[in-house]
């Protein structure tokens, strides 16, 4: 399939799939709590409603940052699905997150500030592991290009088990799920009001939601890369990982940010870096 076709499928399909996944997330969470839960299409109803609400702002400029956040998240996914350089994808992802944080800082409300600061801490926590994932994939496939990694003939997860587990840890942070829902929580924790999204409303909040849909699809696409030589297994594994993330979300309480950062770095060093050390030593042993 040509990269352009993949790109178009991603641009159109990702928000639809991401929205449905967000609906499943809420439904599965509800079932885990022995509730009925909202309809699967609930995230779409929410976004449609938000688009019709009044857009209350502290400063008008805060909304431009969120617009760029959305654009850059879409750009990140587009680079990934078009088969571009994995390192470039990582940097685009970081830039997108930075715009989200800047938007929250711009709104100058104490809750939004704490949310923004915690989002930065979360980025600090996951960033080393994300880079190690890219490096690990390079060591096995000798390429940073997503399309070459995807067409590699070995099952990456067998060579990179530590990095895969570390990436699961990172996903929990990236999806802002418990125990890492520090900057903004989906649930009824209200001590930060809504953390980083507190000052965004109406259409801007809808943009944040849509950005999350794109992000979900992109991150699950990355999970798929670990299983890319067996496509069916890859799709099933991505969905299982998604369910696993929801399970963890429902089982754990929130961690303190210090513990979150230390935990994430410990995982990055032990599982991520350890995996890479083993990979580089293996040829010497043979």
């Amino acid at each position: 399939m040509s990269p352009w076709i993949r790109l178009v499928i991603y641009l159109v399909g990702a928000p639809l799939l991401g929205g449905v996944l967000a609906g499943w997330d809420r439904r599965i969470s509800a079932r885990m709590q022995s509730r009925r839960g909202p309809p699967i299409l609930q995230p779409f109803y929410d976004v449609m409603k938000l688009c019709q609400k009044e857009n209350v702002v502290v400063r008008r400029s805060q909304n431009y940052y969120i617009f760029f956040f959305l654009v850059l998240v879409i750009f990140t996914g587009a680079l990934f699905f078009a088969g571009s350089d994995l390192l470039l994808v990582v940097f685009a992802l970081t830039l997108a997150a930075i715009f989200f944080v800047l938007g929250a800082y711009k709104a100058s409300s104490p809750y939004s500030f704490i949310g923004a600061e915690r989002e930065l801490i979360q980025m600090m926590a996951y960033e080393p592991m994300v880079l190690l994932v890219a490096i690990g994939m390079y060591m096995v496939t000798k390429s940073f290009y997503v399309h070459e990694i995807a067409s590699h003939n070995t099952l990456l997860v067998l060579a990179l088990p530590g990095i895969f587990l570390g990436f699961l840890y990172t996903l929990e942070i990236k999806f802002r799920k418990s125990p890492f829902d520090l900057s903004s929580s989906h649930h009824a924790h209200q001590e930060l009001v809504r953390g980083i999204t507190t000052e965004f409303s109406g259409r801007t909040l809808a943009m944040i939601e849509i950005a999350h849909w794109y992000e979900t699809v992109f991150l699950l696409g990355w999970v798929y890369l670990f299983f890319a030589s067996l496509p069916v297994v890859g799709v099933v594994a991505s969905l299982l990982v998604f369910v696993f993330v929801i399970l963890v979300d429902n089982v754990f309480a929130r961690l303190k940010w210090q513990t979150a950062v230390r935990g994430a770095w410990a995982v990055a060093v032990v599982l991520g870096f350890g995996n890479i050390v083993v990979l580089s030593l293996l040829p010497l042993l043979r």
Partner: protein
Amino acid sequence: MSSFSKSPWIIHYDASSCNGCDIETLACLTPLFDVERLGVINTGNPKHADIFVVTGAVNEQSRDVIRNIYHQLGEPKVVVAVGACAASGGIFAECYNISGGVDSVIPVDVYVPGCAARPEAIIDGVVQALGILERKKKEMAAMANSLDKALYLRADKSDAPEILALQKTAYQSEGEIYGDDSVPALHQTLEEIQKDFDRPERVFIKAVVNGKIIGSVRGYAAEGTANISRASVHPYFQHRGIGHRLLQEIEKAFPNVKRFEVFTGQKSERNLKHLRKHGYKEFKTEQGTPAITWVYLQKERK
């Protein structure tokens, strides 16, 4: 049903009293009732909410909080008063620090009876609120689309209740600025405003869209000066030139005067800016209430 009634996000505030209704409201989220199946999210952020659920009677401390939260909800919004205390003050109504039900502070759309209100009744109240939310949204969309067709007419006595309701909605933001209850526009009664209509020298102008009054201003002429006051525009339609047109229309309504006079609070930057743009200049200040200093502005007719 549009997306509005499928995705009602709620903010809940307990104003005072025994917490019975407070607990019953949260009981709606439990697996037994699970309001999330209706798309309800219980959010702590007024800026994300559509429905403001208030329990308990209003006291001196909670009054400002209620007004503040109400003000932060984006339009369209509805208010549900849950329980006897929120409706009327309930058994606390006679207490020295209780000002009554929620409607003594903000406009209420749905009252849920009960002491404590049962979760079923609260859910029913929220469902009824959805209908009102839907209606408000339609009205606003229709009105926002025809703002350029707004009519600027003389109001008569039959318009008094609608103008008063509009005035109280529009002046919420002023109450917010001064942080106390002393803004006179928020205290005017229907009798007072009707009496004003009976005075022959008074002129009331209203801005009408689709049969609804979304803006008004009034004034009277004495000794060659037209005194203009109480310019109000519905919060949802502000910054779209309606206040500007109202001022022009009321000035036209006094063809024989040489001078126009208005006043506003010293901290109402937006009003001051608007008036200066129209050529009004400050000429005196006067202590109005403990919190408000009135700034008087005037303009000579050229």
